[in-house]
């Protein structure tokens, strides 16, 4: 990793003279031009765990005139903004030398990376996730390159491991193969991350009243990491590099760094964290909408909760016991019906977000129009654990890039016995659409291992 950065001496001198130097320019980051000709484009992944009751999710017909299935009823008002895409596969998630172990971990860890996970190595091995590819592209245009959030913590008993590291289950967003972008599960903390303060109004940081400069301290730390690189082993350096790049990310969002852009931002205070999941979910949804509206970040990954999260409860829906255990439904109608109840509620939460975003006018349209949103899970059916025929929904028009309002169904070649087929349409292809919509088209995304690419062409059906 080669990043030009300030020497400590230069930084300290600079600080002594003027703390208000344009931070981003000092750091060699591009500064967004003041007048953007077009409205900003946002990307959101809205993830729900443990699969979906697919029979109540998938419309019975293709095209635009499908009738909304039971689980998706709440999306009826947004019908013209969503696409339901059936038949996509995450083949890389099925690549393993251990056929069944870690299928949650693989499905989740590889969901946005479309890269096979490797167990039994001395470190984590994944790829770079789609959101982080975008974050790299957009870094510097907003205060935060990306935001990763969830509505509750995952299992902490070690039961999440399943032959792999728990990190794969806890994180969708990966900056690189061994660095998960951990998520914030506290709405108030997420708010402060976004606004650097407990209010959207922000607070004025006066260097005279706070002579201890966080950014100077972090700079000394970065210098030290640099010096340590000379004496440590390769794998140690990789660990410290996680620290270094994380510091760089944080420096950009320190209160001392100038606000890069500000959409029309309502005056709001940070929420106090709800102590129940139901309200926590909706607080995070409010935050997503606010972050997009204020243009604090354009890339958000929202894991409503972790996969395989044994202690999770849905008693507020009248359901007792663990969602994960329920998801191994064994075709019991009562289990399936409970799963459907949970799925329906999840989609309702999603729909409430779409309602908020579609209510925010921007340019000729709405914030929703200027967004590319994915709703998905690591499995289709939570019992069979297959990584094909996955639930996938897009929302928004991506600034006119997306043709919405359709149910598109691709042929499924994968068959029972957990043998996926490379002939199934890769989810990675959809990701190529995302990159294209953001003006950074790529020819491939993800890998099936051994340097072979996975996604190689965009989905033409969803393009306007």
């Amino acid at each position, binding site marked *: 990793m080669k990043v030009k950065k300030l020497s400590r001496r230069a930084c*300290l001198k600079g*600080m*002594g003279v003027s*703390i208000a130097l344009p931070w981003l320019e000092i750091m060699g980051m591009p500064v967004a031009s003041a007048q953007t000709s077009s409205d900003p484009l946002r990307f959101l992944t809205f993830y729900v765990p443990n699969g979906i009751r697919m029979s109540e999710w998938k419309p019975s017909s293709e095209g635009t005139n499908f009738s909304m299935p039971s689980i998706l009823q709440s999306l009826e008002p947004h019908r013209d903004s969503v696409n339901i895409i059936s038949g996509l596969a995450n083949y890389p998630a099925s*690549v*393993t*030398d*251990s*056929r*069944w*172990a870690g299928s949650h971990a693989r499905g989740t860890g590889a969901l946005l990376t479309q890269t*096979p996970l490797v167990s*039994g*190595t*001395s*470190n984590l091995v994944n790829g770079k996730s789609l959101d982080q590819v975008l974050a790299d592209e957009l870094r510097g245009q907003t205060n935060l390159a990306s935001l990763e959030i969830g509505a509750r913590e*995952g299992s*902490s*008993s*070690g*039961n*999440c491991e399943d032959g792999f590291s*728990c*990190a794969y289950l806890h994180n969708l967003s990966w900056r690189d193969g*061994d*660095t*998960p*972008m*951990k998520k914030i599960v506290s709405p108030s*903390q997420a708010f402060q991350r976004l606004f650097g303060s407990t209010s959207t109004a922000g607070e004025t940081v006066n260097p*005279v009243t706070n*002579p*201890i*400069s*966080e950014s100077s*301290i*972090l700079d000394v*730390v970065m*210098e030290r*990491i640099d*010096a340590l690189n000379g004496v*440590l*082993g*390769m794998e*140690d350096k990789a*660990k*410290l590099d996680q*620290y270094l790049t*994380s510091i760089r990310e*944080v420096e950009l969002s320190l209160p001392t760094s100038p606000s890069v852009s500000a959409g029309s931002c309502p005056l709001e205070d940070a929420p106090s964290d709800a102590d129940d999941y139901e309200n926590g979910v909706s607080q995070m949804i409010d935050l997503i909408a606010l972050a997009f509206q204020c243009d604090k970040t354009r890339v958000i990954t929202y894991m409503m909760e972790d996969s395989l999260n044994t202690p999770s409860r849905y*008693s507020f829906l009248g359901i*007792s016991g663990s969602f994960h255990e329920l998801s191994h439904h*064994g075709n019991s109608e009562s289990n399936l019906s409970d799963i459907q109840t949970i799925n329906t509620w999840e989609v309702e939460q999603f729909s409430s977000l779409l309602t908020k975003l579609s209510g925010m006018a921007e340019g000729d349209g709405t914030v929703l129009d200027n967004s590319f949103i994915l709703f998905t899970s690591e499995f289709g059916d939570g*019992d*069979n*654990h297959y990584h094909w025929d996955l639930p996938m929904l897009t929302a928004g028009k991506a600034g006119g890039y997306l043709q919405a309002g359709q149910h598109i169904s691709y042929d499924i070649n994968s068959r029972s016995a957990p043998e996926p087929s490379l002939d199934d349409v890769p989810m990675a292809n959809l990701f190529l659409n995302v990159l294209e919509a953001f003006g950074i088209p790529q020819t491939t995304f993800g890998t099936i*291992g*051994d*340097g*072979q690419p996975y996604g190689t062409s965009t989905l033409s059906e969803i393009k306007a």
Partner: protein
Amino acid sequence: MRLLKRPTPRLLSNKLSQAIAYACLSGLLVSCGGEQLESEGEGLIPAAVSPTPGPAVAIPVDGQTPTPTPSSSPTPFSSPSPAPAPAASPEPVATQTPAATPIPVSSPTPSSAPIPSPTPAAVAQDFGMLDRSYWLLSASSEEGDLNNAIDDDDTTRWSTGEVQEPGQWLSIDFGEMKTFNIVDLESEASPDDYPRGYEIYVSLDGVNWGEPIFYGEGNSATTSIEFDDVSASHLRIVQTSSVERLWWSIHELNVFWEENTSPTPTPVATPTPLSTPIITPSPLPTPAVTPTPVPLVTPTPVPVVTPTPVITPTPVVTPTPLPLPTPTPDPVFNLTDYEQGVLVYEANCEFCHKPITVSEQLGRSQFEITEAIRTNTFMQSISLTDEELRVLEYALNNTELPVTLKDVVPGYVIARRLNQVEYDNTVRDLFGFAAGYSPSQDYNFAQDGFRSGFNNNAAGLTLAPLDVENYLKAATGIVDDVFASSAMSSAVLVCSGDDDSLSTACLTSILDNILPRIYRRAVTDSDKSDLLGIAENTFLLGGGFTDQVKAMLINALLMPDFLFRMEPPPTLGDSHRSLTDYEIANRLSYFLWSSMPDAELFETAAAGSLSSEEDILAQVDRMLADSKSDTLAQQLTKQWFQTLALDEIFRDGELLDEDLKADIEQEVYMLVRDAVDGEITMQGLLNAPYTYLNSNLANHYGIDGSGLSDELVRYDFNAGDTQRGGLLRMASFLMINAHPENNSPVRRGKWVLERLLCSPPPPPPANIPSFEPEDDGEATGSLRTQTEAFFEGRDSCNACHNAMHGVGFAFEHYDENGRWQADDNSFAIDDSGELFSTGVSFVGVPGLVQAVTEDSRLASCVVEKTFAYAMGRDLLTSDYEVFGFYASQLGVDFNMKDLFKVVSTSPLMTQRSSEE
């Protein structure tokens, strides 16, 4: 189709050294030293195998041009079926490149991808340089035309256009099958741009590349790579190393098939489609004098090789020397039956059953192996030839512990971040905060990911922007808290300074006092000047003396030297080094206390007195006597015995009541603490005749709790009362391994196998029928009867479930809440069981406990878990042999204190390997 992860060079060399180790073990090699590794390694390579279970291939008759027989059966490379093809396994020829290493072929396991295997070339091919006219090149990146590499112009080049990084590659599509054995990469016009490391892959379809057939390091402008004959239509060179600034360039690329000049013909392989190639004594006649160049797949006449005597490894310190093979100019020796058996085992069995030296399958007969393969779904794709079965049986029946401690590979731990417990404890001990001070909770630290069973594993402890933000807030908050306390702040402020000018001398004194404790080592002038710089910065921004000190402390708490535990690698070229006294002090304190070293430990380290075993043992005794070692008992309780899972269980749709949960956890903790304190032995964890109860817990168990209060106190059971006693009869184990409304013999059995015997069953397949017990009111039999009826005839399930049920049924007298039940919903209880892998039958939990304590796996499992926790790294194959050795030394039962001493003085804890 399945795909292989690309093996790293390090893993390959591990594999090689493992193979060498077995050769050493047999006494064939006197030394395993690195210098001899290359030449000695060669003989270990299994010879070529047939690509498909097709017809036998032709033997060349004219000694010049082989007449290959086209394979009649198509090779299923693109089939999604998991049927793997065998590996291409060239016998390496003597190589001129000292840095190059032939790769011992690990045969494909059933889950491996089809590895392209050479099929006989479709067209007879002459020796010499391959015609490049029809080649199609592709590469991971391109700077300059790819065809520059094959344009007969050595001034033009292909280049990566970026600095050399592992994974860069260049592929050739020959357009047809070619046989070849040399690849030349020429970059004389860019003499520094040779690949620092490389791997050679071949493929039949350009998609499936399988394992590399060869790897090595470049060291001059022309890299000439020689390997054994291989036939393929695609060739790929993967760059495996990195170097600063330099690109990887190739000015001219050539491939040759040269007549094999080595006097050593290739040993014959038995075609073995699904498992390790076995070298068998050749039934073929010895060929004429002229060595025969052969395409890979052609069985070659074998020279007479002195059959190596069969070895019987014994658990001795000095391996019995065995006769060396007759020296030849290029020595090749045959593998013994034992070595062949080990290779078969590694290829087919090791994934589930661990390395053979610690396998629970030792002693199996051919019949048992065949039966297991026939009946077990997980083993369906394994297919062994009669010869493989024979050598596998031989190996399983002749393996004993081979370890001597001088061979220990210490391994290394990558820079490891303090986890939450370690951070809290360290901050507590650093400044003198009261017990319970928890910045990790106060500042919402992101949870520590588990890996390899524990949350102190270096690889699982990642770092993201969220952590930086939390550390920043925590450091500021901690320092504010220190300065809010006169006792703590006066301990920091060893002198006083001015607000109006920089009191450098005093600031330095403050650092001299506290910084060695923050960094947990001796500090340098450079360490201090980093922090004096931030003091100066604070001063320039208007901060007074206190602010300056605060800034230094905040800064120090964010330094990697505080947040990480780092052990730099040995000097380049050294395989390992001893840890420094300070590093050992840290290893000890984080193992036994989950915290920083205390003053005495620091002093001992500073005096250079932690290097001997006696010195370490004296500290371990002292540290275990300190109440800070409670953390060790707590962490083993939460993580190994998994009381953390009490947070995740439901009863009546709700999580457990907090008070009851705390009591249930405390009961486990207090017994584990007795073991850590040496009050009971390791086996006492399972059969202690007492427990700890308070009135709440007694009530939960239905025990008369009169006289008990809220405090858990020791409660001795009457002689002959076997309902309670030990971890397996406690609510924690019984409840976390149950369903909300029923006990679960499956989960209880699995837990015992996994966490006490370290022999977990494989994970369940997806989409299996689920067993739903009948409702209590309508039950037609006991849970056991229902379970057995459900599994009746489901052979593929029973292959694994028999092992779990055999253990789990012993707990039928304990319901889902861990309460004793005289009958099961009015049905009689049968709690007889069997330890499936050893065949020991028993009745009830007392019987199970006796069987488990008599099982040698218990001791080695306790050793394994303790080491995994102490080291904080993933376990290596070589570790298991060390664990087995220690377990055999400690005996079937031992005091945990003795184990902690073994761990603390082990080379695994006092040394580190290089990364190579």
